[in-house]
């Protein structure tokens, strides 16, 4: 049997499949389906320094082979996470990643500092959330922004630091390089692409936030392209995501350069998606005589 273990910035994962931030809450709901130890890791719902109510509804819209969300980072705040969610999560036998978002660099730094004192396994810097007015994506769409926020947080973060990139940029390679230069231990990509739907009867945007983030299969070709472009610019590991819904998609992102993967929207279509993807991946490796999933990383043969 091929080895599914991977290592991201010193953190060993039993398999490369991580639940994507915001699609898996803090794990409790999906633990009804299977032990969370089935997963390589969990990236928790994006947390902020203080509790956030989130955006007014509707927050969800469907699109061809995808969906939009504008949840707006509804979350109970970092302290609540550390006290109430993390202890339970840490008993689940999987790697726990804290996904943090802030309005200001100071917010990010304070959270990183607080989390450094916990037994969270990794910190994921969400500088790419398109659904909040302040902060979020504004840091993520310029090299200078990415570099400064990453460098700032780096100083406070004693945990492996993963920077999550936005796809709403012209040159993702450049952005990835900026994150690496500023001290990121890993990159995760891609967050959602900003989109919009309009109800043609009411002439209102379907989402109360007007725009939202596109995720799901529609995004896959963009994710594959961006992971490939980024992987040619950085040496740090890339955690790939965006539209993975079947094991074949997972293989594509690995070949493009990802060392591990996050699964998001696929949970909504099928709560068992990561289990099926893990099994499919295992069989693919075995069938092709690949000893370890890590061998797929970047094994694309570009023309």
């Amino acid at each position, binding site marked *: 049997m091929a080895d599914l273990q991977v290592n991201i910035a010193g953190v060993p994962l039993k398999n490369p499949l991580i639940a994507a931030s915001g699609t898996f*809450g803090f794990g409790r709901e999906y633990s009804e389906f299977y032990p969370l130890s089935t997963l390589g890791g969990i990236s928790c719902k994006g947390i902020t320094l203080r509790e956030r109510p989130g955006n007014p509804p509707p*927050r*969800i819209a469907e699109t061809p082979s995808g969906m939009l969300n504008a949840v707006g980072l509804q979350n109970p705040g970092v302290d609540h996470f550390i006290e109430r969610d993390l202890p339970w999560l840490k008993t689940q036998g999987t790697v726990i990643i804290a996904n943090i978002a802030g309005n200001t660099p100071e917010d990010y730094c304070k959270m990183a500092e607080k989390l450094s004192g916990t037994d969270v396994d990794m910190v994921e810097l969400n500088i790419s959330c398109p659904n909040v007015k302040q902060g979020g994506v504004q840091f993520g769409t310029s090299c200078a922004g990415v570099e400064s926020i990453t460098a700032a947080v780096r100083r406070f973060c004693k945990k492996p630091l993963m920077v999550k990139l936005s796809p709403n940029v012209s040159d993702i390679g450049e952005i990835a390089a900026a994150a690496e230069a500023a001290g990121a231990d890993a990159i995760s990509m891609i967050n959602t692409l900003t989109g919009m739907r309009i109800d043609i009867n009411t002439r209102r945007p379907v989402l109360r936030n007007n725009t939202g983030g596109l995720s799901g299969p529609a995004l896959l070709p963009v994710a594959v392209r961006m992971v490939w472009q980024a992987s040619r610019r950085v040496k740090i590991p890339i955690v790939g995501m965006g539209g993975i819904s079947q094991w074949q998609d997972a293989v594509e992102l690995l070949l493009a350069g990802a060392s591990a993967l996050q699964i998001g929207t696929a949970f*909504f279509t099928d709560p068992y998606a990561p289990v099926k993807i893990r099994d499919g991946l295992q069989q693919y490796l075995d069938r092709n005589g690949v000893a370890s999933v890590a061998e797929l990383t970047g094994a694309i043969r570009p023309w």
Partner: protein
Amino acid sequence: MKYDTMLCGLIRKNRLAEDIFDFTVEAGKLAEAACPGQFAHIYVPGKTLRRPISICEIDRDHKTLRFVFQVRGEGTRLLSQAEPGDRLDILAPLGRGFDLGGTGRKAVFVGGGIGVPPLLEAAKPFGENAAVLAGFRSGNAVILKEDFERAGNRVMIATDDGSSGHHGLVTDLLAGLACDVIFACGPTPMLKAVCRAAKERGVPCQVSLEQRMACGVGACLGCAVRLRRETGEEYYGHVCKDGPVFDAAQVVWED
């Protein structure tokens, strides 16, 4: 088991009205676990998001669930094309259903259009203690009348065009109807009116709400609904986990 997915064989399919379909599926343990007012999240091949549909009837003996749904868009249209023998990928039972309390109380069930089916399983145990007020566009859109009657409920119909029952709003029928508790499901304006009436009379009222959903289980925080705590503080709860049935006093109506 709280909830799970299952491939459920479609065993009966009927068309109750022009655009309203009635499905009964073999649901095994999902049927055993289901309570009135809960819902199912149904996979539609080719769609990224499942479609939430309330459980209309639960048959624990035969382990079946019944769903009555209206074709509103592409997803429900595709769903309506399923044929007996096909298997539906169903995630259920989800959410918090009706808190029925003592069925010796006089209960009024108020349903508007496709809001009527979610009330059936809840009304049944009340037998003749339940008055079911059901509003529809017109006489040929009336559904489930006999089903409620078979359970002993007293059914009163209202239609917008007067072609069946009372000519007017279903909430008109509330006037002068004594009751200890109200259960309602339907369009927002109707629910608002029902809640107002319940408040005026000082009777408890439970309403079943809708919101666009992704996960259906409480993980994505997509299906937000504005709620009020007893302290008066407002916050966003979630239809799929905290509801779909809410105490009317909790709900903050947004527009």
